[in-house]
């Protein structure tokens, strides 16, 4: 349970970090809080040659609200979100999600950007943010680009971030006072990785996400259409049918817990 050998490079700016990434020989990994990559390295599931430490890079740790958008720096910790740094209804949703991520001593180090970039299907942010909408900000040698959460995660631990790029933040919609949301995570003990996630956000348009699958979380348009039509509850059997249409490769048990998660998420949205 000790990491394999690696080289460690401290960086103090995004330019430094991008240069380190560009000059890396072998596999380089970006580390912010290290709360997912650290365990994976201890278990030797991950064995990078070079660890580029961005835990001191300035400018990635802010929360800013502009018209209709909340930008959260990649290095903002789950604990800061849990403690209410993200404003408004968007913040209320995110507080609930953040408080269920692992344990306080992990949330003090773990970051939202790290979680999104790591893209563990069982983690909370990939599903929760796909339901919220918005997207990620990615920096490369040629500057900054933005891409929507729709299609960003392409599989387990796989995203659209290039080898020479660094995720610098997320940009999320400001939910109105009348927005509704429900988040339900199936796990056997508080703080564990999810066995199933149901995430519903009804802002400008309803978004329904089936998460903690064996691959990327996915939206369920049939549920979104029902919600758009004014439906305020979702039976487990309807949820099963609607999820099955996506052929997610679930066995009966997995289908059931994902249907329950979505049904209860809808229930929470209208509670």
């Amino acid at each position, binding site marked *: *349970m*000790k*990491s*394999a*050998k*690696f*080289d*460690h490079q*401290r960086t103090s700016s995004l330019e430094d970090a991008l240069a380190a990434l560009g000059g890396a020989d072998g596999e380089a990994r970006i*580390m912010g809080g*290290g*709360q997912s990559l*650290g*365990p994976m*390295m*201890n*278990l030797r599931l991950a064995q990078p040659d070079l*660890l580029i*430490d961005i*835990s*001191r890079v300035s400018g990635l740790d802010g929360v800013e609200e502009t018209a209709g958008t909340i930008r959260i720096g990649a290095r903002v910790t789950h*604990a800061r979100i849990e403690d209410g740094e993200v404003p408004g209804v968007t913040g209320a949703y995110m507080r609930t999600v953040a408080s269920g991520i*692992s*344990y*306080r*001593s*992990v949330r*003090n*180090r773990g970051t939202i950007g790290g979680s999104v970039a790591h893209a563990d299907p069982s983690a909370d942010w990939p599903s929760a943010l796909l339901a919220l909408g918005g997207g990620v900000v990615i920096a490369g040698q040629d500057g900054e680009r933005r891409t929507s959460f729709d299609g960003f995660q392409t599989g387990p631990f796989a995203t659209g971030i290039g080898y020479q790029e660094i995720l610098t933040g997320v940009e999320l919609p400001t939910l109105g006072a009348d927005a509704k949301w429900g988040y339900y995570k199936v796990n056997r*003990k*508080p*703080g564990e990785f999810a066995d199933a996630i149901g995430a519903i956000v009804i802002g400008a348009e309803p978004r329904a996400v089936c998460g903690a699958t064996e691959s990327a979380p996915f939206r369920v348009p049939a549920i979104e259409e029902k919600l758009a039509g004014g439906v305020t509850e979702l039976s487990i059997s309807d949820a099963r049918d609607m999820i099955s249409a996506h052929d997610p490769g679930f066995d009966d048990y997995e289908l059931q817990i994902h249907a329950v998660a979505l049904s209860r998420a809808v229930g929470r949205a209208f509670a």
Partner: protein
Amino acid sequence: MTELTLKINGEDVTANVEPRLSLADFIRDHRRLTGTHLGCEHGVCGACTVLMNGEPIRSCITFAVVADGTEITTIEGFDDDEPMAQMRQAFHENHALQCGYCTPGMLVAARDIVTRLPDADEARVRLELAGNLCRCTGYVGIVNAILEVLEKRRS
């Protein structure tokens, strides 16, 4: 090897370490502060919990090189800390430890609960303790000890 400068329990420390060395192994093997325990070594059991700049963290999944420039407080560093003194006494009186393996991490987590969440009730205390595993006393004594300190600090 990478140079590392930090403060541990108020003492300035400089060392050269391998990047793959965990903060927990640095604390235990290089500084001989063996009060910090290692259980799972992947962030689940909580035995290795220490304070970094005043906040609890997992020293097993934090590399020592990442702690450069920080202030670390291990279980040996709380002699003059009032909430920890209250917690030690309450653990003693409530049979909140048996073998003691989880106790250093439990105490650091418990101190965080009473200082961060002064209004916590039993359900909240149990939820917050989800990240610290005890395999012998169970949690009744530990929860009672924390509730007792919360009550004492409120009155």
